[in-house]
């Protein structure tokens, strides 16, 4: 495999991040039993695990942001 044919790590991680968000959305639907499939996906590649950790950390940060004045203002603007 030549250098130009090697998968771009940045592209792999970006794709993994998109998939991680889709997994998270699926996980939030109680009618879907995806936990086993998610664990298999996580076991497949380190990029998947990194992407999942990043999305989880972002979600947690956003949870913390709920009571910030900036977010309250943005929500008021939406109304």
């Amino acid at each position, binding site marked *: 495999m030549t250098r130009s044919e090697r998968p771009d790590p940045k592209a792999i991680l970006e794709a993994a991040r998109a998939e991680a968000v889709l997994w998270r959305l699926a996980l939030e639907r*109680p009618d879907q039993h995806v936990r086993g499939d998610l664990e298999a996906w996580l076991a497949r590649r380190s990029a998947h695990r990194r992407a999942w950790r990043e*999305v989880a950390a972002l979600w947690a*940060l*956003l949870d913390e942001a709920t009571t910030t004045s900036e977010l309250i203002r943005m929500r008021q603007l*939406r109304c």
Partner: protein
Amino acid sequence: MSFAHSVNVGDLSPETLDARFRRRLMSYFLARGQDRAAAEDLTQKTFLRLLHTERSYVENPTAFVFRVAASLMRDDRATSLARGEAGAVSLDDANVIVFPQDAVTPERELLGRDGLRRVLMGLEDLDVRTRDIFILFKFDHMRQSEIAERFGMTTAAVQKQILRATALLLARHDPL
């Protein structure tokens, strides 16, 4: 019952809570690493807490319900950690990889306040439509199908907007 205006939390009936919030609370708890039984338990505890809330008017009852839910989950986690129960999060626990939201991981330590500030700036920088959709989904806990109806778009298009917002926010707080 409309939730578009101020509501007295003490007036919410068990039936209203169940119809309006059971599914969404289950989703909330499942997405944060609770198994089905624990999610059921926490959902029930949330309803009980709400039903015993002093009469008070709140502007956004949905946000209030999820604040109560988050508080109960934190208490539950703290109790498990204090008891040293199996299943409590630790850095060696494989569950940390899968569901790390409540654990103090090195990633979260690093993100800290600066991460919060950058993510909020990232939210500000999203185009208005994408931001509105993301806020409705993430903070108002609105279903994707409900958002789609409100904006006159397909559920797939809403999901695309959520993905786009998330990708931009991730790039903002952790540039590749």
